[in-house]
């Protein structure tokens, strides 16, 4: 095999070793550690935002700034696609 393939396989193996040793340092599945922010949001959703849905109140009220960034990304994707296909005749 050529030299480029051997170097790629070597880098692949190093990344695999790092991933597999990184898994063992995470929390076990089903028992997250300290979740104070999530417990506060679950307890106080109905008082402060007035909805029953916890996930929607986080997406639009507690962390609404991330939704603003995501709307910007959608807008820039549509602008990019329309700019790339402008000269296609109708």
């Amino acid at each position, binding site marked *: 095999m050529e030299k480029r393939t051997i170097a790629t396989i070597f880098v692949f193996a190093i990344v695999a070793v790092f991933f597999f040793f990184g898994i063992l340092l995470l929390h076990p599945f089903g028992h*997250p550690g300290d979740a104070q922010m999530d*417990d506060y949001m679950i307890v106080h*959703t109905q008082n402060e935002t007035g909805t*029953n849905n*916890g996930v929607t109140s986080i997406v639009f009220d507690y962390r609404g700034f991330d939704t603003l960034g*995501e709307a910007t*990304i959608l807008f820039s*994707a549509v602008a990019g696609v329309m700019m790339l296909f402008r000269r296609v005749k109708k």
Partner: protein
Amino acid sequence: MIEYIPFISVVCMIFIGLYAAMFRRNLIKIVIGITIIESGINLFLIILGYREGGVAPIYTSLPAGTTSPERMVLPVPQAWTLTSIVIGGAVLALMVSLVMHIYRKYGTLDVQKLRRLKE
């Protein structure tokens, strides 16, 4: 060791996508590999927020006896996954448009031939 099986499946998914993005020559296959990596990352975010024996964090008609926050799943990783899916879709749209322009200009989709056609 048996409680780490979901994380091992996420790592296998990332490595399948990484293999397709690094070792294939067709441009469409490289784009598909990048999309598989993004799906693996979304799965990892959902796996992080699971509590054992929990229900969805929605107060409309809960099953009986689960109102304390220790019996509900964490809601914040689900909000991050929503944003990540939309970002993945936007990146896929732009990658497909660029691949179409490359094919229209050079006539081929082989990566090793494209390195030598400098016009």
